[in-house]
């Protein structure tokens, strides 16, 4: 099933469920719960919630408690630190409203739900470590990479080299991390340069060239590079925010949202990229220690604008004092043309 059909079916099932008006509980469900319990609640990673009874108690208070506190032994997260009490009540009511509808989920059908179009949601962003395309980023964006070069084609049959036929290089990023929050926001972070390389909105990735069609398995393409499906918003320019030798340390998850930890020279940096209510907009919160003054050139881009919660603008650059640079948030907003 291709992605547009899958999306259409999901959309249809949601419409059938709720008419055209989505309740607050249903909205929360689709944002935070659907990635595990299925868009229609019939279960994926998490159990089917459309049976007459659910596993940990069917009373409203039982469901609220499960949502709020989680079931650690079953890997059900505790949403109490993410959702407020009203949202928890609404989503619990929504779960009660679909209980007893006895929808058949993929577990019962014994059918794989795997596709080459992985997706996350706002509540459960999806993270994949993979090769990624450079999408026209300039060579200067990759100063801490080795320089690949075309090499004479080797013929293993007779162990000869053909100096007239060169094996070319292709434009990929070897140590990338791609993250998707649903159609609202996707981005590509590089663990070699330790910086955000690009963002986009709309559909995430087509992994067919790497994973094969459908449930996959068959090698499809020479290059194994996924296709970025949505329109780009932000693309890194040559100069990084922090100058120095980068080393990737870790990422942690804060309520499912990745926070990257790395060093650049002597500085320890963290970066958290989050979506906002504006599709395609990325809120990038940096911390640096020890902090020093920063000068960030304003973009000369038709696809996005940059704003910051701190600092001052001067001569086409954003100036942050050492104090301001300790923690600051850059917001990358798509221009109307890029939405």
């Amino acid at each position, binding site marked *: 099933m291709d992605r547009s059909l899958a999306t259409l079916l999901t959309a249809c099932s949601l419409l059938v469920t709720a008419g055209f008006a989505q309740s607050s509980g249903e909205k929360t469900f689709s944002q935070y719960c659907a990635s595990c319990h299925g868009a229609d609640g019939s279960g994926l990673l998490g159990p089917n919630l459309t049976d007459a009874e659910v596993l940990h108690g069917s009373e409203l208070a039982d469901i609220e408690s499960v949502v709020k506190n989680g079931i650690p032994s079953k890997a059900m997260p505790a949403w109490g630190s993410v959702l407020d009490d009203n949202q928890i009540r609404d989503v619990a009511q929504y779960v009660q409203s679909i209980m007893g509808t006895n929808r058949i989920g993929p577990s019962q059908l014994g059918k794989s739900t795997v596709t080459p179009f992985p997706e996350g949601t706002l509540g459960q962003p999806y993270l994949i470590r993979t090769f990624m395309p450079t999408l026209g980023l300039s060579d200067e964006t990759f100063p801490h990479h080795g320089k690949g070069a075309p090499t004479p084609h080797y013929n293993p049959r007779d162990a000869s080299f053909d100096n007239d036929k060169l094996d070319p290089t292709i434009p990929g*990023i070897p140590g990338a991390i791609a993250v998707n929050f649903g159609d609202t926001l996707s981005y590509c972070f590089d663990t070699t340069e330790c910086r955000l390389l690009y963002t986009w909105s709309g559909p995430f990735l087509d992994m067919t060239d790497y994973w094969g069609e459908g449930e996959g398995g068959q090698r499809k393409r020479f290059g194994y590079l996924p296709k970025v499906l949505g329109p780009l918003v932000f693309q890194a320019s040559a100069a990084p925010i922090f100058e120095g030798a980068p080393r990737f340390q870790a990422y942690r998850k804060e309520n499912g949202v990745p926070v990257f930890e790395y060093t650049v020279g002597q500085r320890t940096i963290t970066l958290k990229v989050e979506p906002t209510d504006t599709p395609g907009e990325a809120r990038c919160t940096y911390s640096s220690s020890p902090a020093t003054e920063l000068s960030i050139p304003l973009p000369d881009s038709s696809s996005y604008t940059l704003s910051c919660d701190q600092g001052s603008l001067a001569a086409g650059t954003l100036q942050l004092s050492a104090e301001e640079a300790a923690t600051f948030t850059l917001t990358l907003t798509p221009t109307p043309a890029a939405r």
Partner: protein
Amino acid sequence: MKKAATLALFGLLSQAPFLSAGSYEIEAIEVPPYVVPEVGGLGFTPDGELVVALRRHGILMAKPSENPSAFPWRAFSTDSLHNSCGIQVISRNEVIVSQMAELTRVLDTDHDGIADRYENIAAPWGVSGNYHETNTLVPDEQGGWYVSVGTASHNGPTFAHTRGAFATNGRTGRNYAAVPWKGWILHLDAAGNSTPIASGFRMANGIARDPQGRLFATDNQGDWKGTSPLYHVEEGKFYGHPSSLVWDEAFMENVSNDPLQYYIDDFEQYQQDRTRAAVELPHGFMCNSPSEPLFDTTGGAFGPFAGQALIGDIAGDRILRCMIEEVDGVLQGAVVKFIDGGLGAGNNRLAFSPDGKSLYVGQTVRGWAKNLAEGLKRVIYTGELPFEVQNISLEKDGFTLTFTKPISSASSYQLANYAAKSYWYKSFHAYGSPQMDLQELEIPKIQVDGNTLFIQVPQLQADRIVELNLPADLQAADGTPLGQSQICYTIRKLRK
């Protein structure tokens, strides 16, 4: 990681499924519908949960149930790690994973069952952008690891921007080492400090330590690998695939800055410089793509082969068994089929259940097989002793075979039903090798005494494989038919 054509041919030649009668049963384990079970790593937590690292998903855990369709699966991590092909399970809150770009510590810091921290322990090897460069690991039992770093394949490209330095002379060849430490086994200490241990690997997709702590690795038949080997890995040695030597500074300075061409030009020097396999796994009928060796540490719970190495075959519906001994200071030995049929292909990773009675088999054949065999199986020992060759030892003029049960003398004395031949495989730049200098060997005498059988073979030579074919109708004294009658012994050293 073989050609589809080879597999198709192999399928035609393969025999009907055989299981050592009644001794081992195979079950398919059902996995959740949200994953493709391309298994890159298998292990158990100290409290008995099975841990499965997937090559295009995250990490699943489940306490095995008797019903193979009712495992209570949970996702420890849903992050899709990049071709996780090696794991060490520390606990239900901590799993070490070797992925393409990094050795990663995956942690559940708040103990809610879901991983929330992914630390870069070390990334001493480069990444060229070629799909073939998967890595696998074995713990050193001192907080560190040995990591086998796979080479790239000429069936895929490299990137304009590589992780790590790019070497033009490493990029050439059929399988190649364009960026650091491809084709090496590295040691990483607990802090992530890296030391190169041994070079010359093509695709050592299996690394293990035996109960004595000695390091072993399998490698895959292809260029510079006439047939697939099981190596005893020792520090400082070169195991035969030249491209990796681009990252050996001493070799580049003192010998040649083009190791591939150097050994293409001088085969005699190559034969002197390389270290040979402890056990060669003949291509075509024994194994086409070996994966992880697993030493039987179950102390008999999994049957009568304690201490021996089991090896999965990615390209074949098979698990092999290696019997290793020390002769004149080197480790060498024989391979025999263990499970032959009933599993499917893709047998990539092996792990014993905590009680030792089951062997879990993680499968993956991404890319090559016509009929994909991804999945998870288990092989259960029923407790019924099979009749098999339990061990083999080289003698000056033949082999002594020890069986799991007393041999029926009535079925064993037809000398004409025994056959032995010898051959060798040529490792050089071309892909694989035919059987070279095939000779039928004379068997003047056999001698049976209880569980043991002596087969006299006077014309033994070093650096050759001796293939023994026992009578097909050989039986145990209690009437059990012999399971596997074909044994291939790799002679590195003759018995003095």
